[in-house]
Each structure stands twice: as C-alpha cells, then as structure tokens.
C-alpha cells in the first residue's frame, strides 16, 4: 500500500556519443567514448557502434548527483518517468512499469506488486553503470522486455585492495550508510557492499490520518567473488540480500465511524548467481554458463490499534530458478553469432492463491551481429519461449546502424516484444469480503465457477435452471495469451562539431492482446465473478531528442525532450462513432465527447524533458551540477463518468523539479557533498504522494586503498 521511501531524483545525462567524435574534452566524455555495453546484444559492444540506442549512466554521474536508490537515477533520464502504482516503477516510451524488464548483471529482479517492481529496493552505491535499452528486447531477453530493459551492472573486483565508507543524512531524518570493500589478487577477487537506508517518512496530507510515506528502514548486502580457474576460464559467484521493514497506522471504516489500523510489513529478496565463462585461445569462441536462483517474500500484518485484534494478514512468496547457457562465436571478421538456451521454473505461494503454483518455461535464442561494410552494422535475432501455461512466443528483432558521414549516423530497428501473464492473471482466487465480488485467474476460473455453482451462489438461467455463465468469455479466458507488441524505431545521430552532439528518434509501439478483467457470471449477492482475458489494443508513439554541448572544458550543458502520444484504440473507435459521453460534474448535463478531446491513456505526459548543467574539475577535486526535470501535465482519473481522459480537470498539473549538488574531494580520499533535491519545494499533495518537497542532504565519504 504505502509508498516506501523518497523520490529525490538526480543524475547526469548519459548522452551516447558517436565513434567519430573528435578529441574528448573532459574525463566524463572520455569515459563515455570508451563505454562498453552488454544489454543491447548480450555481448560486449562499444556503445558508439551498437545499432540499438543505449543510454548509459555511469558511476561518476551517479555519484556526482548524490543518488542513493535506482529511482533517483532513472527519474532524470530523458523519456523515462517514475510513476507510482503499488510502488514506484519506471514508465518507458509511455508504457507501464510492468513492461520494462529490470536486470541486475543480466539476471531479472523479481517481486512485482500489481506489475510494478519497486525501484527503491535497489541501492546504487555499488553500481558501476546502468544501461537502458528502449524498444522491445524480447528477442534477447524474453518476457517483460516489451518497452525495454534496464540492466544494472554492479562493480567487479578491481586491482589492489580498497574500501569506502559513506554517510549521508538529509531531510525527513533520512540516513544512508554504506560500506564497500574490493580486493583483487592473482586469482581471487572479491567485492562486498552493505547498506542501511532509513527515513522517518513524511506526511503530505495530515487530514487523511495516514502518512504519505511511513517510517522505514532497509538493509542491502551484496557480494561478488571471482576466481580465475585458468588462463581463459573464470568463475564468478554473486549474491544479494535485501530486507525492509515499515510500519504505519491508517483509518478504516468501522460502523458509523472509523477505527485505527496498524500496518506492519516486511519484504525481503535474495539471489544467488554463479557464472562460469570460458574463451578459446584463438578468441573466436566464448561460452557462458549461468545459474540464477532468486526469491522474494512479503509479509503484511494489520491489527486494530486499539486492542491489537487482527484485521488482515497477507503473505507472498515467489521463487525464480534459471540455468542458462550462451555461446558467442566470431565468424571471420564480419559476423558474431550468439546463441543460447535456458529453462525457468517460477513458483508462487500467497494468501490469494490456492496452493503453491509453479510455471515452467524453456527458451532458445540466436543472433547474428553482422558488419557487411565499414560503417554498416546489422543485428538480427530471434528468441522462442515455450511455456506450460500459455502458447509459445516467437520474438524476432532486426536493427541496423549506418555511418553516413563522419558527423551523421542513422539507426533503425523493428521487433516484437511480449509480456507473459503474471501469477495474478493465472492463479488469483480472491473474493472481496466487503463488497462480495470475486476475481479468479484464468487457470482457476473453471473450477471456481463450478464450486460456486455447486454452492448455489451463481444466478441460474430461468430457462434451463443452470448457472448463467458466459461460456464465450470463459473459453477466451482459458486460452489467455501473453500481451505483445510490434515496435519500430528510427533515429539520427549528429555530431556537427566536436562540442555539439544531437540525437533524435521516432518510436512506435503497437500493443495487442492487453489483458483486462471481465465479468462472466453473476453471483446471487448481485455482484459479478471476474476473470482475465485478452481484449484491448493500444499504441504509444513519440519522438525523443537529446542534445549536449561542451560550453568550456569541464562544463557541459545538455537537454532532453520526449513527445508522447498513447491511446487506446477501442476508445478511438467508440469516439469515431460518437458513442462516448461525459457529464459535467457541476451542471450534471451530459454531452457527447469529441475525438479531439481524448487525451489518451492516463498517467502519460505528452511533453517531458530535462536541462542539465554539469561541471567537473579533477584538478581542484570539484564537481557541481544543476538539473531541471520537467514533467508535463498528465491524466490522473476520470471525473465525468466515461472512464476516459477528456477534460482539463482530469489532469495533474505539470511541474519542474530543480536539483543541485556539489562536492569537493581532498587528497583523493575525503569527499564532502551537499545537495538539494526539488530546490523550489514543489509539491502537489492531492495528486502526487511521491513528491515530499525540498530535500537537503550532506554526505561524507572516506576512501582507503593500496595497490
């Protein structure tokens, strides 16, 4: 329920620079030029050459703006919005958080609530870089990579031995303490990271009787051990553990008044990930075997504050197990072939599921990375996912990049993405104890309907006396398919001078078989029985542009902008036939809605963007940044009885957040940083619970190292 933690966004732009840009003018830029990315092709590639646009946010940028959690980092990137729905997730190309795959070192983070993976579960103190790939990546990464992929690359052991200790304290009694150690010897390497993050939370609307963000504390421990088994054979074993506790009270209706209910929650996740790699002596073959085991658990306990009597209790346990192999084969000088296969076993056990449920899937993928001519790169691949609960999915993708002139490159890609039905859509068994309706997952609904019918709880057909069940809908529910998309992307990359870089791209995602709930039988209490089925189609399309300009050595100005349209095609069809109405909430007069008034899907900003100024002086040990993040107005909720976005009152006002940070380092050992997020203190208590207002913070960092 309540949002955990803060929304203090900050980071630096990670503009992708082209291969042929001239002399780097500062260290930040040099770092980007040499950047190697893995998410686009599942092989290490220079960011400047991959045909798929990748945004990289490096450790330097992450540190320079004082980010502590992943949502801080993603919230400042062009084309990404942090949206709140059972936690804070990332909206990419106008698609909800459930359509973006979140990876840590190439392995998926699990534990989504209503589709949202809470980004603040990820501490950024041990991150080397974050790679963001927009557009479907199911051809390589499978389900959920429909809008794109965020891959968090954690630090690998570096030569020598070093350690850091960092303390940060800020508004709302927010404390972040972390320590890390790193060592790399002849054969053995080790990194370890521990973090404690806590806050007293905040309350935007005292009259609601509950905190916007209740107090919480969480702990993260992450470690990686690497061992050189042979000259070209390496073993890496990493593990992660995270736990968070949160407590609050809130009012619930009781009789004619309200009662206070105390809420206590605990969530944990863990993972274990050994990876074995081997390359052949001639460098042509490279093999990777990976094993990944992850778990996510939540416990929520509700009791009446007055007497401690139980009010509600829920739990959710999820496990994910995946062995995978991958082979990369350099064929001549022009081709790199990549192939792989894997098996996934997922399990869930929860309050609202009948029993422990297991899903199995297997998959295989192939890709050819082909350079037919200098300056031309084509990457084409496909992946097949077979599943024991729904039809198999074939996801092809092709992309190309061509360096037309030293200062101009063009890119394009087309591909298919998909998102598998989740546990809820397959296995949910929920009857609302208060209102009385029921929702069943598609694997459950037949048996549950039979049980309700046997208990005489379904309304019968007067003609036959049999329960009145919409069998057409029941058949559709039973043959539930994954949601899928077909997407296109085309863009330009311009470098007119060595100081100026520009990128622009057009994207379109056409979504099919979106899963929604539908009533299919009537209960004798007057309420409905719901299940899930594939019904709607929607699209998102837009333009994204970024520009960077080197004002002076060490001083860089950048900006980003996204224009977005996202619409439900069923609503567009109804508008075309004049079948959508609205009732003025004040005059209560009803009128027909014109197609032009349709504002598209809720919670999407047509306009969003950012402006960033970054200063760095390695000689003086100084960094400073000023970032302005704009989110244009977006639909919040229907107010006039037609369930669509069509009047000004249904929008949340647009806003800009200004974040500043500065740091000074002495002797390459001590760093002091101060910053203000949301410096103008913008809040919108009625509509945006994730904006706490102005946040001040200061941090000190101590670095120790020996070669």
């Amino acid at each position, binding site marked *: 329920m309540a949002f955990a933690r803060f929304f203090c966004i900050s980071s630096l732009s990670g503009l992708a620079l082209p291969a042929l840009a001239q002399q780097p003018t500062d260290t930040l830029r040099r770092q980007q030029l040499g950047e190697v990315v893995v998410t686009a092709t599942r092989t290490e590639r220079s960011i400047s050459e991959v045909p798929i646009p990748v945004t990289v946010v490096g450790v330097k940028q992450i540190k320079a703006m004082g980010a502590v959690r992943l949502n801080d980092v993603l919230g400042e990137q062009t084309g990404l919005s942090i949206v709140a729905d059972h936690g804070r997730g990332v909206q990419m190309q106008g698609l909800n958080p459930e359509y973006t795959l979140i990876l840590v070192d190439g392995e998926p983070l699990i534990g989504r609530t209503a589709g949202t993976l809470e980004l603040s579960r990820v501490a950024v103190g041990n991150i080397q870089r974050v790679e963001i790939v927009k557009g479907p990546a199911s051809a390589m990464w499978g389900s959920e990579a429909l809008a794109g992929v965020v891959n968090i690359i954690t630090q690998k052991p570096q030569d020598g031995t070093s350690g850091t200790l960092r303390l940060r304290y800020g508004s709302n009694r927010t404390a972040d303490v972390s320590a890390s150690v790193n060592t790399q010897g002849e054969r053995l390497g080790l990194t370890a990271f521990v973090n404690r993050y806590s806050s007293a939370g905040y309350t935007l609307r005292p009259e609601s009787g509950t905190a916007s963000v209740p107090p919480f504390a969480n702990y993260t421990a992450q470690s990686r051990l690497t061992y050189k088994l042979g000259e070209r054979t390496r073993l890496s074993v990493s593990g992660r553990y995270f736990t968070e506790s949160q407590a609050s009270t809130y009012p619930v209706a009781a009789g004619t008044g309200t009662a206070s209910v105390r809420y206590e929650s605990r969530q944990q996740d863990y993972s274990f990930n050994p990876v074995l790699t081997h390359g052949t002596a001639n460098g042509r073959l490279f093999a990777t075997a990976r094993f990944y085991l992850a778990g996510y658990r939540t416990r929520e306990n509700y009791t009446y504050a007055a007497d401690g009597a139980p009010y509600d209790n829920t739990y959710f346990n999820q496990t994910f197990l995946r062995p995978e192999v991958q082979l990369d084969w350099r064929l001549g000088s022009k081709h790199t072939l990549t192939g792989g296969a894997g098996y996934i076993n997922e399990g869930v056990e929860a309050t609202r599921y009948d029993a422990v449920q297991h899903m199995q899937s297997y998959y295989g993928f192939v890709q050819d990375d082909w350079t037919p001519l200098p300056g031309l790169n084509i990457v084409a691949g496909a992946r097949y996912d077979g599943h024991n609960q729904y039809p198999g999915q074939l996801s092809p993708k092709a992309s190309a990049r061509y360096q037309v002139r030293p200062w101009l490159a063009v890119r394009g890609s087309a591909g298919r993405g998909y998102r598998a039905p989740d546990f809820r859509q397959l296995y949910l068994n929920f009857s609302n104890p208060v209102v009385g309706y029921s929702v069943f997952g598609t694997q459950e609904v037949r048996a549950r309907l039979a049980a309700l019918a046997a208990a005489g709880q379904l*309304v019968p057909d007067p003609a036959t006396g049999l329960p009145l069940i919409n069998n057409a809908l029941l058949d559709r529910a039973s043959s539930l398919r994954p949601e899928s998309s077909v997407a296109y992307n085309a863009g330009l990359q311009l470098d007119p001078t060595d100081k100026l870089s520009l990128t622009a791209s057009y994207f379109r995602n056409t979504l099919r078989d979106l899963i929604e709930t539908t009533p299919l039988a009537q209960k004798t209490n*007057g309420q409905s029985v719901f299940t899930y089925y594939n019904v709607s189609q929607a699209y998102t399309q837009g333009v994204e542009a970024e520009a960077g300009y080197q004002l002076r050595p060490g001083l860089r100005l950048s900006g980003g902008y996204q224009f977005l349209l996202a619409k439900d095609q069923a609503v567009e069809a109804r508008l075309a036939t004049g079948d959508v109405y609205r009732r003025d909430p004040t005059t209560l007069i009803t009128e027909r809605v014109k197609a032009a008034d349709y504002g598209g899907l809720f919670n999407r900003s047509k306009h969003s963007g950012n402006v960033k100024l970054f200063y760095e002086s390695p000689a003086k040990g100084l960094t400073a940044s000023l970032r302005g993040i704009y989110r244009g107005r977006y639909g919040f909720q229907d107010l006039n009885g037609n369930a669509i976005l069509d009047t000004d009152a249904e929008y949340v006002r647009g806003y800009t957040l200004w974040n500043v940070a500065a740091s000074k380092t002495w002797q390459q050992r001590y760093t002091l940083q101060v910053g203000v997020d949301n410096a103008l203190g913008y809040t919108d208590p009625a509509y945006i619970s994730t904006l706490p207002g102005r946040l001040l913070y200061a941090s000190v960092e101590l670095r120790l190292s020996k070669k």
Partner: protein
Amino acid sequence: MKTTSTFALLALAIGFSSCSDDKDETAVAPALQATTVNNLAAGVTTANGGGGQPTSATKYTFFSFANNAQVATADSNTTKWDVGFRGTTIIINGGNSGPGQGGALVQSGLFADIATAPETGFKVDAASGKAITTGSGMGWYNYDGATNIVTPIAGKVILVRTATGKYAKVEIVSYYQNAPATPTATSVSRYYSFRYVYQPDGSRNLK
C-alpha cells in the same frame, strides 16, 4: 431530506413544441418536462455493509414517476411505485420484484436526444438478474475498486415501463449526497440524484 425541482427540458424541447401554428394547441399539449430529483436516499441506514453498499436487511426506497414522490415501504406489493433503489441496485415494479407491468432497459445516448421508448428490448426483474443489470460497468454505473467511488456512466439512459404500463426515461447523475463534483471516500453514498421524463398519456413519446 429530499428536494425536487422541475424545469423545462432545455430550450431544445421548447423549440420543437413551438413549431405548431396554433397557439391554443400549444397550450393544450405542452412539451414534456424533465423532472430533477435530488438526494433520494436509497438504503441509508446506520448499518454499513461496506463498499458503498447497504446491508441486505435494508429496505428498498420506492419512487413513483407519476407523483414525483417517494412511496411508503408498506406499499411494496402495490402498483403505486415504479422503481426501487437500494445501494446500487435498482428494481422495477414487475417480474419478481413487484405486481406491476414494469420493465426496463439501459440505452446509450443523450437523455435529451431519446425521443421514444423502443418497441422491444424491455426486460423484467427475474431470478436470473435484474432488468437493470447490476455490477460495475454492466448497467448504469462504474465502481472503482481503488477509490471505492461509484460513478454513473455518462450517456446511459434507463428507459422504464412503469407499474401501470406507462413510459419514462431516467438519467442518474449522482450517487452521493448533494452531488459533489468530485466524490471522495468521505462523501456520503446512496443518495441518488437523477432526472426523468414521464409520459402520462401511455404513448412511447418521450420528448
């Protein structure tokens, strides 16, 4: 508790009726007028069944279109009432709900545009379901499970055959006391505001 007001059905309706050349005739057959009913309490009791619904023990609130008035619970087995409200459930005086000739159907369109009651399509209340289908998105309202707000669907007009076989059209505009522009969790539910046009002459003409 209940206030009613009457006004001429928009300038539109008056405009049509004034097409007649004969001023006397205009006076004899005036255009049908829309009646607005505000804050008709439907199952408001101290017992709260939760989720915006009353407990099952709560009685229906009966209403007569001809008299523009609430009808006593004691008259439930007569044809004095046309529709009954309890929570979001609306019954008509017919089928298994009452002794009358009542029936209903829900039609999409603008209240003002609907000129006649259709010849076919009227349903009566039965064990298999009400003439006005219950449930979110099925009949006249949407229920938002996240906010617990009941919103009458814009453009849904209920055509009613009354207990005595006359016709009326009804548009429900609010489910909350004093029809707040933006109902919230603290708004008091089960107070119907609606407008209706009742045709006393027994014809299907509703304009």
